[in-house]
């Protein structure tokens, strides 16, 4: 019988349907092998476990490429934490620090000495001249000593 003929003969269709139903009822349920059943049952559990393992790392759905740097960051963060811990300096470090301090103070001393000299040179000279110039107006002796100083 051709499929196009079904519309023309509804009685036949009903007969076919009842025949199919009867055949379906005769079918028995094939049991899957036990190993396959176990594996299939395990799938939802494993999937849930996988999701839970990284769920604290991924609040939303992150793309897989983001996982590699995130995993790499964990040991780096641990390393950073270790490095940030205050370390007890060694005896060599302390000795080096003493020498560094000595050099630092030597530079301070040097700058202070030079500055002192500069100030003494500028202020000393100017003060001496300004005082002597004023005095020489009234006291001839200072005028004489001023001349001697210049010669």
């Amino acid at each position, binding site marked *: 019988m051709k499929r196009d003929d079904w519309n023309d003969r509804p009685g036949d269709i009903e007969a076919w349907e009842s025949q199919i139903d009867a055949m379906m009822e005769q079918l028995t349920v094939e049991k899957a092998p036990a190993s396959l059943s176990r594996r299939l049952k395990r799938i939802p559990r494993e999937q849930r476990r996988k999701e839970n393992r990284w769920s604290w790392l991924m609040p939303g759905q992150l793309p897989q490429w983001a996982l590699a740097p995130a995993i790499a960051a964990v040991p780096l963060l641990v390393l950073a934490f270790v490095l*940030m811990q205050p370390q007890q300096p060694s005896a060599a470090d*302390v000795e080096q620090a003493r020498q560094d301090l000595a050099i630092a103070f030597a530079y301070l001393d040097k700058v202070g000495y030079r500055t002192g000299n*500069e100030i003494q040179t500028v202020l000393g000279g100017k003060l001496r001249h300004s005082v002597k110039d004023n005095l020489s107006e009234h006291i001839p002796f200072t005028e004489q000593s001023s001349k001697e100083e210049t010669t």
Partner: protein
Amino acid sequence: MKTSMIRKILTACVTALMALPVMAQEDALKDYPGYVDFGELSAVFGEPTVQISVGASLLGLVSSLSASEDPEAAELFKRLNGVRVNVFETDGMADGAVDLVKDVSSRLGDHGWESVVTVNSNDEQVRVFMMINDDQVEGITVMAVEDTEAVFVNVIGSINPEELGRVMENFDIELNGHGDDSAD
């Protein structure tokens, strides 16, 4: 391709981590009122010939170890938070050196530092500043730039200048090629 990318990321992370302790020490010093940011010294003077940065922890240890040998120095170190020195050798007055000294001086003035000494000559620029709070010196900054050398010193902590002078006398250090300067 992917491996090299991850390697690059890891290298960058490790490099950043290596610099963390130094940055942390500098950051710790930045919180003190006596800290001075000299700006980009290397851009003007090149690489420093002497660079010293001693933090509070090392100063504390040096202090405790010096207690029996030099009690006065030990007492001074105990109250210091940091000592920073940058020295540059120069051939003539470096371009931008005077401007840098003036800029830093201006900033220090704005931040409440008191100018103690100023030497303004063609061949020498010297500035000494002090940070004084409640009659207590909390920092000393020295900038000395001349034809052959540029020195930047920042002493951070509670300092008595007289005490500093006495402690400096006890140090017997001859600076390279400049040891005779203080003798003339």
